Structure formats: C-alpha cells, structure tokens
C-alpha cells in the first residue's frame, strides 16, 4: 500500500514536471534568441568599457579600469548630449501625445470623409525616418526652397534658417509629426473601446460635454495614454536617424545615441571610451525602464490569464 502510494506520488510529480516543461518549451526559442542577441553585446560592451582601445590610430586593447568612467563625469559634451536626449524625448513624447489625443477626439465623431482623413493622418507614422527627415529639411525648413519660409516671406517676414537656428526644435517637429499619428491610433482605440452606456448615463444625468470628457472619457483613456507614453519613450529615446539626416549632430542636437556613434564607429574610433558611454546609457535606460515598467505593471495589474 505505502509502496503503491509512493509510486503514485512519483508519477504525479513526474507529470507535473513534464507539464511545466511543456509550458516552457514554446517560449524557449524566443527567449534564448533574445538573450543571445541582446545580452551578449552588452556584456562585451561592459568589458570594452574598462579598456583603452583606439582603432585610429590603432592601439592595442589595454585594461585601464574605471578611467573611462571618471573621464566621462567631467566630459561636458556628454552632459550636453544627456540633456539634449532628455529634452528631445520629453518634448516629443508629450507633444505627440497631446496632439494625437486631440486628433483622436476629432476623429471619434462622424463627419464627411472620416476614413480618408484618418488615412491621411496616419501616413507620417508609416514614412521612413530618413525620408521624413530629408523631406522636412530640404523642402519645409530650407531657407531658399522651403515651404515654411515661402509662407513667412509671403506674409512679409524674413526667412529663417530653421535647422541652424533651432536644431533640436527642428528635429522635435519632425518627431512629433511622425509619432502623433501613432498616439492618435492608440487613443482612438481607447475611445472606441468606451462603453456607450456610461456616456449615455452621464448625458441623462445632465453632465456637460466638458465634464463628461474630464470625468469619464479621460480616466477611461488613462491606460491608453500610459501605453502611448511608454511605447513612444522606448522609441524616441533612441532616435538616431532624424539627427543624422537633419542636423548631422549639429550643436544642441546631439543626443546620446548620436554621441556614442560619433565617438566610436562614426569617426572617433575610441571604442573603450564609447563603450563606457554606452554602459552609462544602459544604466540610465534601466532606471527609466524601471519607471516605465511600473507603468506596465499597472497595465497588467490583476490580470491572470
């Protein structure tokens, strides 16, 4: 009897182990792939960051400890780049969220040709960043052939070299132009997921359009706005293409991604130092990510599949 029970317990335990692996198995390819492709480079970066390693002029890789990091603290270019990154990310995320929400609210009502208007509005998101940057730079901002300056001149103002006058601002304009549609799509999904009966009830209770928006629509949209902020931040903090084609890293527009690039394969060829920058960026990103993930865990809160 006891032997039989023990056998049975073993059998059940084996089944449980098997089940656990059956559940894990489908996950493994994605997980292993992601670990290898994303984590290995960072481990290498970490190692490089403790070395002095220049390619041009070539020098052998030597271990120098934390020198790259101490040098970094006093590097004012790095500080500027960090500031530019924060400024560009915050400004473009907030502006695109704000404008995207506005557009979504407009599109949530029925009007003539709504489908076509939405189609036009989402297009910037689909455009290649390189193309977006080039088109804005050469055909909108440009002081001689740009449409913006043509408008200014027609109105009797002097033309402005937008890109050299406001390098970061110009980049932000293009970023907002591209990401606003994305935010709009997310908010639109949120609006369409609203429960009409709640709105109806509020109407019946005599609430004004404004208070309905503030007290019912906005709270319901909150998770969508958070999602937009999160995804927007993930992508916008890493902006490189726009900087490259619009200003080429001109003053006040070099963000950290671009800075690291400049210092390494973009011409600086100081791999050790650039790696140290990267690691600092990674650490900073982890801090930001933690904040972002907190938002995420709110989104997932209470959800058990």
């Amino acid at each position: 009897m006891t032997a039989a029970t023990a056998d049975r317990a073993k059998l059940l335990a084996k089944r449980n182990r098997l089940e656990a692996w059956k559940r894990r198995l489908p996950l493994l390819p994605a997980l292993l792939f992601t670990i290898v492709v994303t984590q290995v480079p960072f481990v290498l970066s970490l190692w490089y960051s403790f070395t002095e390693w220049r390619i041009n002029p070539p020098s052998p890789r030597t271990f120098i400890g934390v020198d790259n990091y101490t040098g970094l603290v006093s590097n004012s270019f790095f500080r500027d780049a960090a500031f530019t990154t924060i400024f560009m990310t915050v400004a473009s995320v907030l502006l695109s969220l704000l404008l995207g929400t506005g557009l979504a609210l407009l599109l949530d009502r029925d009007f003539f040709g709504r489908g076509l208007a939405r189609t036009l509005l989402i297009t910037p998101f689909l455009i290649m960043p390189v193309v977006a940057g080039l088109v804005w730079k050469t055909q909108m901002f440009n002081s001689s052939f740009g449409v913006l300056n043509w408008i200014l001149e027609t109105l009797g103002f002097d033309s402005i070299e937008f890109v050299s006058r406001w390098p970061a601002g110009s980049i932000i304009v293009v970023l907002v132009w591209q990401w606003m549609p994305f935010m709009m799509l997310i908010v639109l999904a949120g609006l369409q997921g609203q429960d009409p009966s709640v709105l109806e009830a509020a109407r019946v209770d005599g609430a004004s359009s404004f208070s309905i928006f503030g007290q019912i629509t906005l709270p319901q949209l909150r998770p969508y706005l958070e999602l937009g902020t999160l995804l927007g931040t993930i992508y916008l903090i890493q902006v490189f293409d726009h900087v490259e084609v619009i200003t080429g890293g001109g003053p006040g527009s070099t963000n950290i991604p671009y800075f690291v690039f400049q210092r390494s394969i973009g011409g600086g060829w100081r791999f050790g130092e650039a790696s140290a920058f990267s690691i600092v960026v990674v650490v900073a990103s982890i801090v930001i990510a933690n904040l972002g993930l907190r938002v995420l865990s709110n989104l997932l809160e209470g959800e058990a599949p």
Partner: protein
Amino acid sequence: MSTERSQIVGQSRRSTIILGLAAWIAALLVFFPIFWMVLNGFKEEIDANSSPKLIFDPTSDRYTEVTTQTEGLLGFQEAFTNSFVIVAISTLLVLIMAIPAAYSLSIRPIAKWRDVLFFFISTKFLPIVAAILPLYIIGTRYGLTNSRIGLVILYTAMNLPLAVWMLRSFFSEVPKELVEAAQIDGAGIRGQITSVILPIVAPGIAATALLCVIFAWNEFFLAVQLNSVDGSTVPIWVSSNVSTRGNFLAKLSAASTLATLPVVIAGWAAQKRMIRGLAMGAIK
C-alpha cells in the same frame, strides 16, 4: 456605432460640421509634406529647387533617373530586393518565435509569465546604439556585416519583444473555455492552435506583422553602420540620392516616394486592424 455615440454625446449639427472641418484641416496640414514630396518628384530639378510652385510641367524623368542603375552605386533594384528579403525573413522569424512564446505567456502560461514578459520589454529599453560597437566587432569577425544575414538577425531581435508583447495581449483575449472545449473535443496542441486560436487572433497577428514590417523596412541606423557596402537596404538608397554637388531635390523626392510606397500602402490597407491591434489588445 459612432453615429449613435455622437448622438449620445449630444452634438449639434453645427458643431459636427465645425469639428469635421477642423479634422479635415488638420489632416491636410499633416499630410502636406508628403503631398509636397510626391509633387516634387514629378518636377524638373530646376522647378524643385526654386521658390515653391504648384503649377509645373509634370515629368516622370526623375523616376527613370533614380531607378536606372549607375555603375558602382547602390541600385534601386538591389536595394529593394535586399529590403524585401531582409524584412520578409525577419518578420517571418519574429512570428515563428513570437506566436509560441505568446501562447506560453497567455493561454497555458508558465508560472512566471509576468517576469518573462518584463524581460522581453525591458530589452527594448536598452539602446541599440550602445550595442552597435560589439555588434560591429562581432559582425566583422564573422562576416555578417555587408550581408543580409546580419540585418535579418538584428531586425528579428529588434521586433521580437514588441511582437511577443502584442501577441500575448491578443492571445489572452481568446476565452480559456474555447481552448478547453477544443481539448475535450479531442484536439491536440496543434489542432487547438490552428483551428481555434489562430482564426481568432488572425487580425492581431496581421497588425503585429505590419508593425514589424514598418520598423524593419524603415530602419536606417543598423543598416548604415553594418551594411553600407553590400546588402544595403532602401533607406540607404534614399540617402544616397543626397549629393553635395548639383541639384537633387526632385530626384530625392522621387526616390523617397518609391521608398515609402510599399509600407504606406500596407499601412493604409491595415489601418483599422492597427487601431485594434495597437491598443485594444495591448491593454487587455
């Protein structure tokens, strides 16, 4: 549904017209740069490189110019072929890995599904630029730079977390009982996925695939750092039309139009799905 809702919200006819008008003005303003780009692509360089004009003699010569192969330069055909192959294969790989992963995180979840999901998303916070150095070094050593394989791997890695996240959301919208019913009806794991789950989440998969295609097709940084010689993609081809000598605006516009067309058309066709896909699933 929306007419019903606008009635509920109690719009007057006049405000409907005014707000509709506002939406249209916004749409036209937002779309204008693209319209202008397309327009410029049909101009002579001399017309494009002057004060903006709407009236001109349209010509398709710029399209001929940018699509004809010039010796020693990256050709239109080569770039598009590279892009198509790289984007298609990487998106396919993403789906092949992300669909089972999403299943493991939602329908029959592993115990720590939340942690794993966090891990996937957290990799998106790691700046690619910080990885470019080791990637460059590894890529050069193993001959993966200037080849399609390198970019396929990187684009797969780039899109995988997002895809896993989105697909998990869609999968968790599949009622658990449905999968159980299929199980009881005698369907094995393959049968459950193909007959019950996939038909339900198909729109979500389409939306996810589309996002992956958009991000991969448009990616420039990795492409230019790792594949600027061989296996170059469309974004590099576009930027190669910028020259320091002579006028290039019309040519650049034509090239830009061609480069963006495939993704723009796909995006237009799938916009409703994207709306559902981007957020409705993503939040549940």
